[in-house]
């Protein structure tokens, strides 16, 4: 567990850990660079993501198309950049939803304590035993298919672990002296939560969020495998990898570059998450 004190902020600790681990640091910069490139896709992508050239068809990497083209003659590099926008957006937004629900739920539960806490945690257990894939698919089928819904649906599924972790931290911090002091000074509950507990949970939340993001991105890829991902012709990394996998023998470049970027991103997220959560002496 992370140790807490007033003068040593959780972020400083995390930064220190990140800088201590060279590989994780490299991963962090890789993520930052990739995310930046993807979000600037409309500015830097050499072609629009949906511009076809049926005569060209699937062509191997060349000077005009650095990573080749797919069977419709669409530039893979551009599609990866635009797809990254979607995948990162899915990742960030779903994780954001998960953080929002998880943190408020976990904190409320931890602050309430006693019976309420027990009931609220039982509810989390209940939702844990739902088969998520069916749940997400039913949601998508029932409410149509908008990309925003994908975010919300996935976020609504991924908040449980967050809630547990935040609750545990809240319970831990609540019993500390500085919180008790604040209570004695007559600060409101909400005030205590925002001023004291939230900053002290930040480390745990960040770690959990970093590890939630790759699983969200994998889930998006799974939905793409089912054909339930984003509406074509918009690409996402999941759908690019999926489409590429169909060509793995005959036009390997369609799989290799999206899969490399996708896997590297997932790896980097995992590595960074692990590094900042690690307990060193």
């Amino acid at each position, binding site marked *: 567990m992370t140790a807490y004190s007033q003068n040593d902020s959780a972020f400083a600790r995390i930064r220190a850990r990140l800088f201590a681990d060279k590989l994780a640091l490299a991963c962090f910069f890789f993520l930052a660079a990739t995310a930046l490139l993807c979000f600037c896709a409309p500015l830097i992508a050499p072609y629009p993501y949906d511009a076809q050239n*049926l005569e060209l068809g699937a062509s191997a990497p060349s000077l005009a198309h650095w990573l080749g083209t797919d*069977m*419709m003659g669409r530039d893979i590099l551009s599609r990866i950049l635009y797809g990254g926008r979607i995948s990162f957006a899915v990742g960030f937004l779903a994780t954001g939803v998960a953080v929002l629900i998880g943190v408020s739920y976990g904190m409320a539960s931890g602050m309430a304590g006693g019976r309420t806490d027990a009931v609220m945690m039982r509810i989390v257990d209940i939702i844990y035993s739902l088969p998520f894939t069916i749940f997400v698919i039913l949601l998508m089928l029932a409410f149509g298919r908008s990309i925003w819904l994908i975010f919300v649906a996935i976020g609504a599924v991924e908040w449980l672990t967050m809630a547990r972790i935040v609750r545990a931290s809240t319970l831990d911090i609540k019993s500390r002296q500085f919180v008790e002091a604040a209570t004695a000074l007559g600060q409101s509950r909400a005030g205590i939560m925002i001023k004291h507990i939230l900053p002290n949970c930040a480390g745990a939340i960040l770690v959990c969020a970093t590890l939630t993001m790759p699983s969200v991105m994998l889930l998006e890829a799974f939905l793409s495998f089912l054909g*339930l991902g984003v*509406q074509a012709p918009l690409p996402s990394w999941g759908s690019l990898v999926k489409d590429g996998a169909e060509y793995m023998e005959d036009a390997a470049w369609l799989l290799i570059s999206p899969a490399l970027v996708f896997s590297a991103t997932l790896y980097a997220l995992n590595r960074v998450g692990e590094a900042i959560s690690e307990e060193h002496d």
Partner: protein
Amino acid sequence: MKFYFTAKMLLRCALLCAPAAFCASCSERETPAEKATEEKILLIGNAADPATLDPTLATGVTESKILNGLFEGLVTADTSTLEVKPAVAKSWEISEDGLTYTFYLDEKAKWSDGSRVTAGDFVFAMRRAVNPVMGSEYVSMLMPIKNARKIASGETKDFSILGATAISDDILKIELEEPVPYFLSMLYHGIYFPLPQKTLEKFGAAENRDALWTRPQNMVSNGPFTLAKWNINDKVSIRKNPLYRDAESIKINGVDFFPISNINTEDRAFRAGQLHITESVAPTRMDAIKRDMPQNLRRDDWLGVYYYLINTRRPPLDDARVRKALALAIDRKAIIDTFLKAGQNPATSFVPQNCDGYVLDGESKIHEDIANAKKLLAEAGYPGGKGFPNIRLTYNTSELHKPIAEAIQQMWKKNLGVTVEMYNLSWPAYLAARREGDFDIARASWVGDFAAPESFLQVFESGSGLNHSGFASKKYDELIKEAADSKSRAGRLEKLAAAERELMDAMPVMPIYFYAKVYLISPDVKGWNANLLDYHNFKNVRLEGAQ
């Protein structure tokens, strides 16, 4: 540290275990298909699991493939020419007015429990199929029979008025509402198969969907094969029926159907020697297959059309000029060459050409003509696509529909300046959207139930449950009716062509390409004939190994 050794041991175990287990199988082994060839069992890919093996309830191609091996109707078709040939009925007579058919049954025809196949079994099956309680999907195939519509709609519960009567065990009489020139070619469809009344009654299946009679241990059938095994999502096995009336003509011992839904899995299975025949070929693999194993690739014309259905009730698609403009702005050849890659024919009309001698004249056909498309769109009030409202292109989730929709979306954008939004739905949601008219343009396809142009043209009759376009033309309906009444074949085909001209004029449908059956087949399989309906009863098929 000491525990490192424990860890190392565990690691070593994990690394050693696996290869040790494989070594036994390292040498070149006989593939399952080679083994099956020796045993004379045909291994065939089937795109999906049959939902049912009850001929009354069958819903599609995957089931009818198996049922054609299990059952035999009054007539059968030559697997090369689709010419109607005697089967359970050894002969028949058709009355002057074309309304009464009398069939004389083969007394050798037996059920697999040894009892005789009687005219009553056919009557029983037809009555069961028109019974609304059964919810038979192919009940429309029975509508030519007298009073079938009345019973199917629940108007009457008196099944005895159905125009199918057993004169004796050997003689069956079928009366029609109106003359149907192609009636005999409907009769080898699964819905006309006889059913073993005794067996169905024993399992309470006479008026019941949920019955156990189609289980391997219970099922009784009259075809060249009987059901041996049915494991959902695994395989369906049928084996030679020794009691079949023409048992000596069967050259193989059985067929195993593998319900492989993933097209790439099927491709790998064929290459690993686990299948003799695949259901289809992944377009993504087509180039490699043409290069590496052309001897295995087969392409047969198939009576089906892939098209886009237009909702003519919704502006701006309520304007025929807009519909035509969209249809003219599609480069069908490019779609075939880029995505389908098997030399399918571009669909320039709705009815596949040369279906039962039917031809539509060239002028009524639709070809890519961008200049004309632009002109039509401008006339409709959208020059260069300006002001064209946002419409949706709905398609159901599939590896094939997506790229075609993406390509057509781009063609419209490039050629006409029209932007459509792609909208992908699951199969039930897609069907619901079509039924409720909640679409602008929807992907659709149609495969003929029998080899006659009527099987296609009836789709757009105003009363047709498949016509979700809102297109309703009295003239069209009348032309089709007149065709049925016409005395000569030429007269009939002429009327039908006139009807299709009406259809192409109104353009509630954009034909895209005609289906072709594209599959991989092992050289061990002999006598696998090609026909327009992809109809196979496995009777002529032989399996001969390379040796």
